[in-house]
């Protein structure tokens, strides 16, 4: 069974008197353990797609199944629960809570999941160590560099052991070297079995993924295996 199954998804918005059709019937499957890049120019429906995949939004029509549950018919609270359990977000501008420490930021999804304090702390620490920030746990975001902030965000995304990690332009606010480091971390996470979806408009970033889905005008324009990345990944493993 596919991890993600989209069937005939449409999404339209009312913009004043006009109706904008952001997605016009998208059908696709993503399997567990895949590393997918979602590409497209602005206005292609990329952001809408990312919001739907992240369960932040629901489609106007069509069905969306995630890990066996029918997300397209869920209400606000059910969506919050699904996001908490199944999705780990990594955003372009990190989206960390500025007044909380790295550790507390990473703990937060577990707070909402109702995990007891002790267990929660251990899981959060493990997750931070996992992204190489074992010595920065009690720093606040403004005491960390951009790359470190993004690592905190990745630790937060993974702490709940979600079905997919959804990254929206994860290197957009980073210099190219730090960006490359983050992408290498993604590669590593993928090798360890995480399902990753990266939304980007940069070919360099998309190159890391094993499958590239290109959107244009609200439709899937191309969906292909990324052969170029294969040998590199093979070489490492």
């Amino acid at each position, binding site marked *: 069974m596919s991890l993600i199954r989209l069937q005939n998804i449409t999404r339209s918005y009312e913009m004043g008197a006009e109706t904008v059709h952001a997605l016009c019937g998208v059908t696709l499957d993503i399997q567990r353990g895949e590393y997918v890049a979602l590409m497209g120019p602005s206005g292609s429906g990329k952001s809408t797609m990312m*919001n739907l995949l*992240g369960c*932040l*939004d629901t489609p106007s029509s069509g069905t969306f199944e995630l890990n066996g549950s029918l997300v397209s018919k869920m209400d*606000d*609270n059910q969506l*919050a*629960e699904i*996001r*908490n*359990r199944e999705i780990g*977000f990594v*955003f372009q501008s990190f*989206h*960390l*809570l500025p*007044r*909380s420490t790295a550790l507390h930021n990473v703990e*937060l*999804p577990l*707070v*909402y*999941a*109702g995990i*007891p*304090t002790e267990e929660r702390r251990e899981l959060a620490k493990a997750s931070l160590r996992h992204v190489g920030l074992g010595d920065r746990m009690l720093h606040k975001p403004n005491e960390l560099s951009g790359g470190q902030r993004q690592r905190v965000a990745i630790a*937060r995304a993974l702490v*709940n052991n979600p079905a997919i990690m959804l990254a929206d332009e994860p290197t957009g606010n980073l210099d190219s070297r730090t960006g490359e480091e983050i992408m290498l971390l993604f590669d590593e996470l993928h090798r360890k079995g995480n399902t990753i979806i990266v939304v980007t408009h940069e070919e360099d970033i998309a190159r890391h993924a094993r499958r590239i889905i290109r959107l244009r005008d609200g439709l899937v324009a191309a969906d292909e295996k990324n052969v170029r990345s294969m040998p590199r990944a093979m070489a490492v493993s």
Partner: protein
Amino acid sequence: MRFLDELREGLVIAWAAIRANKLRAGLTILGVVIGIVTVTLMGSAIQGIGTSFQRAVGQMGADVLYIVKFPPFEPQEWWKVRNRRDITLNYARAMERQATQIQMVVPETFTESSVKRNNRSASGVRIVGTTESNFLIRNFSTSKGRFFSSSEVDGGRPVCVLGADIADKFFKYEAPLGQKIWVAGIGYEVVGVMAASDKFLGMGSDNHVFIPITQFTARFVNQPDVTILVKVRDLEKIEDASEEVRGIMRKLRGLAPGKPDDFGIIHQDVFLKFFSRVGGSLAMAALFITGLSLFVGGIGIMNIMFVSVAERTREIGIRKAIGAKRRTILLQFLIEAAAICLIGGLIGLAIASSITLLMPKSLEARLSPGIVAIALGVSILTGVVSGFLPAWRAARMNPVDALRSE
């Protein structure tokens, strides 16, 4: 478990948010402080006035009926009652002979006069003419000496008993007993000084001079209008006794059946009922008016919470994205508003309790545990009520839009 966790998380966030905007939170808290101070002060003043009044009225005696010409609290057209005949001393004697359900009858009347001794004087002192039993009927006690005796009353002796304040004024440095005091040019020997009474709005007997009623009729008013105090035999049957007294009075007055009473029989319950009726609505009005300041404080909270929500839109978006439900966000902002109000309530109570310590003792204004509990409850409620709309707005935010905001 999960709720407690969310509660704790909410408290942590609230504390961080308050600390992050100290000045803003401080000004908002000030509004609540003012509201709580005024409301608790008013509440304790009302409570204090109530207790003093009840104690003062209690001095009337639960088992004593007062026969008067014009009863209080019964508004009537003055032209209907102004021609009422006086209550005379004869009625008191007749009452003593005829009534079966009473144990004591005491006439009491007064006038105002100046009092002199050596080079000191006081004007407008209430000179009360009465009999020796007044002392028993009202449970008066003396701090020095004694009340006058029945033989002194019967013999019309020029003796007097002083109220506590009068005694203080004229006999600051010497013993009053056996000394003479001059009332309207007549010398009275002081035989006793009353113990200080409970004062309430000028009630109480501290500024009185008691003389035998026989002296009063001889020297001041020959045929005075008196108040007759009647102590009933059995407190349980005070209604029956009251009816008997009323019947005797009607007979003495020669009132035909069907004619209304042209006198009043009052009892301390009348005062207590009047107070609970008028006092109750006055208290409500006073609390309502002071409550307005708390309302204004609440509007301040609402305002600040709207700002706080708008400012933290992105934070709300982040929290929602990683799994916070509507309920969680709602709770978070409600806790923040309630925490601000609770801090204000605690500060307000501290201020109010120090002010009540400075208030005059006679007001008996104290912060009772009840008022403290109500004040804290009201401040939390203010926070929850005024924080609800902003918190609801936050809870209903769409995560996609919230995340996009800067």
